[in-house]
């Protein structure tokens, strides 16, 4: 089982988890840890913007859609307006075509339906060219 999970520690990738739900925060944080990706966690889009304003930068952002104060669509737009070029993957339980389209158009590089699993996260990393599956 351990052999199936790639270890990306050597690539020194960093990630930001943006989700208002503690359960999802915990699971997504652990998923990234398991793949050897150091990551921080924030609870809404405003905090994601604030952390970038403070000078932090990440290779990958996992962005939830529905969050209080500033949602994922607003936060993605704001980060792109700020010139943040990190790869942003939208992760949400909402999968209606119109909703996904609006989220993608806000500036996402990829999209995955929750719940996240190891293989869905590996798929995101592969799509965003952080990892080549052999």
């Amino acid at each position, binding site marked *: 089982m351990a052999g199936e*999970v790639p270890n990306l520690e050597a690539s020194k990738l960093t990630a930001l988890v943006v989700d208002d*739900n*503690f*359960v999802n925060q*915990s*699971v997504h944080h*652990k998923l990234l840890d*398991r793949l050897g990706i150091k990551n921080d966690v924030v609870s809404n889009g405003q905090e994601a913007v604030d952390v970038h304003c403070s000078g932090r930068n990440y290779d990958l952002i996992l962005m939830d859609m529905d969050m209080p104060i500033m949602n994922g669509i607003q936060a993605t737009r704001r980060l792109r307006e700020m010139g943040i070029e990190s790869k942003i993957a939208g992760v949400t339980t909402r999968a209606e075509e119109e909703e996904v389209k609006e989220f993608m158009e806000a500036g996402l590089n990829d999209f995955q339906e*929750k719940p996240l699993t190891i293989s869905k996260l590996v798929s995101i990393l592969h799509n965003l060219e952080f990892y080549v599956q052999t």
Partner: protein
Amino acid sequence: MDTLVAQLQRQFRDYTISLYHQGFLDDQFTELKKLQDECSPDFVAEVVSLFFEDCEKLIGNMARALDQTGNVDFSLVGSSVHQLKGSSSSVGAKRVKGLCVTFKECCDSQNFEGCVRCLQQVDIEYKSLKAKLQDLFNLEQQIVQAGGRIPQVDI
């Protein structure tokens, strides 16, 4: 004659399989188990504990919103249901997630009686799952205390 460890391991295996077959758990619970390792040996128990705290908080929010007789804010109830659907989905709590789908439909159609029924069912269901998972974790502890390894169960 079976050793105590073998008996406990068989009980654990059978109980785990029954939780999946009876629809209490789905594949996402298996995914959580994959994340548990020597560095975080209690990861699954910690995450499900967070989930049950979330259940309590969100069900409380829904109950308070539904208690505003004649002035129920169904979008507020729906928002809590959406949250609960998300976290139940993340831990593999299949029945709770399924109830949330029905509950959301009742919120969207502003069906008060439907909402009240769903709230009662969700409350019963999460408490039932909590008790069953506690039994499962207790079995794990007993196996370890008896000197055995927790078996990998293929569903």
